[in-house]
């Protein structure tokens, strides 16, 4: 029955995503190439003083991204600090300074790491005006950056890569908002709650008193998944029955998480005028996704120990309503995209199973990755693969008619170094500074030994890759983790964006080189294999030592 259920879920997911691939991908291509502005968009441009017909250089585009993000971050920070005087705050006090910073950084960076229990910390105004707004805009920023990079491949001798404000506005108004409205209606019809009731006191069957939380959950839940954000309305995230009431909503949330990231290769193929290039990228993403899901599921089905053997799998921390497969499917989807939502506790996975969500993030979240960030991460890896392939067979490194020269390789190399550096440095500092180490070991780590190390590693890998999921055994609401993880999230989000936009500018400035017999074909299975190999090897070389100290050592115990 479990196997039948698993096959049914995968088949449904693949079918739905296949049906969505072309229309969603083509629609996104249309959005970002259309010359017409909607009436509401024109009004918005007038308000912010933007001429939508004027394009920006990559430097100007970057300034727009940074200015917009810093203003958003400070707004969310202040909103939390003034929560006590805001309406619909449910009587909750102001959020402490460190936690406010961490949360604001987290939502602006599309991470949604939560060091707090949302239903007991955030009132409705902060949830709606602060966090949900960032769910939309941070996702739209990610897609805009990916589109800017694709324009770099598409254009010839151009100094500009598009207009950030136009891309941002269109992404929100034409894509995220309409889909979110439809998705919220589906979720409400499926049993996800949507109200402003606050807490309702009920008497339980045993005569006890219980406070049931209410809230505008469906409207948050849909963009949490669609924008690969991941911040839950409740502490249990998608394991809470009000957020994820049944097997259908669990599957639907998987679809929401994967819909845009898996359709973006279609957009890419369409914009560069060669759909085969899009299929090649899709094949890489799909292969890594299936391999990761299979490995994680096998680990959890074959958990060592008496209890897992008797139960037919490692059931601790799993979504008991839907079984192991729905848990591993959700966990894989959530960590292979940049969502970070959970319907099971990754901390309770088997040691090797728990390593898999970590590896998913360490891969750079490119299979299929977060909205936008997955595609631009994969394209950077494709540049590295082209370069490596060129070195191997003595061919000119070119990708889509653009020469991959020293500047492009420097930018791509820096891109793949930034996130691991932030993650490993953050973890190392947690143990290298004596005062911090004492605090981490006495307050934050609940599991001594290798698993404790894995918890800290997971936190920094998750933050720097903008995922947001956690090994829940770690108490992260401390001054050190709130600050260090907040900084890691911001640097992990915006430094790669700098490099990608610089790459876009550099590529756009080039003319196209016609393909010759010396050009490495980048739409064939050989290139797909090469790109998978490059992705896996880069991750393995970077992270293997620390994995050996954490989950691998734990697995051998």
């Amino acid at each position, binding site marked *: 029955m479990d196997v039948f259920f698993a096959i049914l879920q995968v088949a449904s997911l693949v079918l739905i995503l296949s049906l969505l691939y072309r229309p969603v991908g083509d629609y996104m291509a249309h959005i970002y190439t259309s010359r017409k502005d909607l009436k509401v968009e024109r009004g918005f441009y007038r308000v912010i003083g933007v001429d939508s017909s004027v394009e920006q250089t990559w430097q100007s585009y970057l300034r727009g991204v*940074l200015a917009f993000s810093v203003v958003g971050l*400070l707004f969310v920070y202040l909103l939390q600090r003034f929560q006590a005087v805001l309406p619909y705050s449910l009587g909750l006090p102001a959020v402490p300074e*460190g936690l406010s910073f961490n949360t*604001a*950084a987290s939502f602006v960076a599309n991470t949604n790491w939560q060091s707090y229990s949302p239903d007991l910390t955030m009132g409705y105004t902060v949830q709606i005006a602060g966090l949900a707004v960032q769910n939309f805009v941070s996702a739209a920023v990610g897609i805009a950056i990916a589109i800017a990079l694709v324009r770099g491949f598409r254009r010839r001798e151009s100094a500009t890569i598009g207009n950030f404000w136009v891309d941002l506005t269109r992404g929100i108004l034409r894509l995220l908002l309409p889909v979110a409205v439809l998705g919220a209606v589906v979720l409400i019809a499926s049993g996800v709650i949507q109200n402003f009731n606050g807490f309702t006191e009920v008497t339980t069957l045993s005569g006890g008193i219980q406070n049931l939380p209410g809230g505008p959950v469906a409207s948050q839940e849909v963009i949490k998944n669609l924008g690969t954000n991941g911040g839950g309305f409740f502490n249990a995230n998608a394991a809470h029955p009000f957020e994820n009431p049944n097997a259908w909503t669990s599957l639907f949330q998987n679809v929401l998480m994967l819909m845009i990231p898996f359709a973006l290769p279609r957009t890419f193929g369409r914009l560069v005028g060669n759909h085969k290039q899009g299929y090649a990228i899709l094949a890489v993403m799909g292969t890594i996704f299936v391999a990761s899901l299979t490995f994680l599921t096998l680990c959890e089905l074959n958990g060592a120990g008496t209890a897992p053997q008797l139960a037919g799998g490692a059931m601790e921390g799993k979504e008991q309503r839907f079984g192991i497969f729905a848990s591993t499917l959700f966990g894989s989807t959530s960590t292979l995209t940049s969502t970070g939502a959970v319907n099971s506790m990754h901390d309770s996975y088997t040691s090797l199973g728990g390593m898999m969500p970590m590896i998913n993030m360490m891969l750079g979240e490119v299979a299929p990755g977060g909205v936008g960030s997955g595609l631009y991460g994969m394209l950077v890896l494709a540049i590295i693969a082209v370069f490596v392939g060129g070195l191997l067979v003595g061919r000119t490194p070119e990708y889509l008619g653009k020469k991959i020269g020293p500047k492009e390789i420097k930018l791509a190399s820096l891109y793949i170094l930034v996130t691991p550096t932030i993650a490993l440095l953050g973890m190392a500092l947690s143990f290298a500074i004596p005062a911090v180490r004492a605090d981490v070991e006495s307050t934050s780590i609940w599991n001594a030994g290798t698993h404790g190390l894995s918890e800290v590693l997971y936190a920094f890998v998750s933050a720097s890759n903008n995922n947001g999921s956690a090994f829940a055994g770690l108490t992260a609401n401390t001054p050190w983790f709130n600050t260090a993880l907040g900084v890691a999230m911001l640097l992990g989000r*915006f430094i790669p964006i*700098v490099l990608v936009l610089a790459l876009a500018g550099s590529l756009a400035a080039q003319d196209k080189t016609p393909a010759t017999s010396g050009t490495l074909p980048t739409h064939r299975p050989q290139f797909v294999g090469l790109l998978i190999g490059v992705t896996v090897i880069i991750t393995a070389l970077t992270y293997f030592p620390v994995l050996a100290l954490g989950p691998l050592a734990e697995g051998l115990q």
Partner: protein
Amino acid sequence: MDTVRARFLANPRVSNRMSCRYGTHVPPSGRVVLLQMELPVLDIVYVLGVIAVFALVGVIGWGVEKL
């Protein structure tokens, strides 16, 4: 309490003086309020920190331009 004494104490002039004597119910001046407010040091640190992080990213962008 007899009526005369009650009326005497209810007089705002008297009650204000009584408040002064016991140091209660004295509406503080704006300057006093300002001086008594705790300086939100952590808020200032975090806001400046955010600006510093974004400035660092901007500087990296400037450095990348020179590559």
